[in-house]
């Protein structure tokens, strides 16, 4: 990812456990971050370092995505726990608003392929955790 000195304009959809950590840290390191979630209490997850914008609303309704000025975003991160939401947000960001870099959290490994068909970068928590566990067990076995 290119890093400009003035920071990136990043939109994060979903402010749950993963989204809030990413949002807080990206904001703390000097990026312009907008986070959107339809549960008001989700924003409590953000750390004090978060200085970006919070938008309360359903990101699968295009009016709310427009509020985030998504067409200007360098990066859109779809990080909710629901793959169908992440798919809609990602494809809309990519195909409709022309955002170049779109990364989605994909919870069900069966869904990865459909995201990749649309040139959306996939992060799979399931695969990552499984990989970590296997690595850990493997190194233990060797030691």
């Amino acid at each position, binding site marked *: 990812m290119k890093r400009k000195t003035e920071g990136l304009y990043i939109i994060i959809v979903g402010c749950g456990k993963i989204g809030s950590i990413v949002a807080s840290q990206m904001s703390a390191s000097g990026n312009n971050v907008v986070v959107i979630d339809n549960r008001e209490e989700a924003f409590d997850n953000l750390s004090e370092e978060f200085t970006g914008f919070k938008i309360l609303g359903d990101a699968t309704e295009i009016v709310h995505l427009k509020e985030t000025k998504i067409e200007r975003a360098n990066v859109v991160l779809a990080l909710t726990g629901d793959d*169908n939401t992440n798919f809609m947000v990602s494809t809309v960001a990519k195909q409709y608003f022309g955002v170049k870099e779109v990364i989605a959290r994909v919870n069900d490994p069966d869904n990865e392929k459909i995201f990749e068909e649309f040139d959306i970068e996939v992060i799979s928590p399931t695969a990552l955790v499984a990989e970590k566990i296997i690595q850990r067990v493997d190194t233990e076995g060797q030691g």
Partner: protein
Amino acid sequence: MKIVIIGGYRIAYHLARSMISKGYHVYIVNKDPQVCQELAKKLSAVIINGDGSKKNILDQIEFSQDDIVVILTNTDRDSLIISQMIKKYYGVERIVTLVNDPENIEIFNRLGVKAAISPTSLLSQTIQGLLLVEEIEEFFPVEEGKLVFLRLEIPDSSPSAGKKLKDINLPNESIIGGILRQNNVVIPRGETELLPGDRIFIICEPRVQTQVIRNLVGE
């Protein structure tokens, strides 16, 4: 060729029943086991209980490319991923989707789902039509509401009665397609005069329908 209906409850039932009576093979996919049981009792269709946005459920359908798929889930995010999986994985092109948020119609269109129908926008256009004037005898939106057909009668009080069509200020997004005058069809030209009692047939974009009616019928 079969018709696959994903999601929905009442609409799925009525649609399936009507398609079965026309002799089509109907498959129904529904998340809710109770709905599935009930539909299985009432319909001679293949019923699959499961989440239609999961590939392992869709795989059970054994799609062929000439199938027609109707997506009736009540959230657009579910409908969108289902429509895209069906296109990409099984090559099915004939997809009809119910869209809940009218603003999402364009997104579905852009992602290759041409028949994206929003009951909300159909209803609101119909209501607007009803609210306008009683002189509208017929009103129906076509092509998912992109075009509207109007049939209206010119009252004595019409600001356009007695005027030539070329002198009537109609929006560019509208056209008068025909006039029925005392049971004779008049094909309208610029020189044609509108008379009270004429029945006129109009095709227009929905956004100008109010203006069209105002100019032809009056307030």
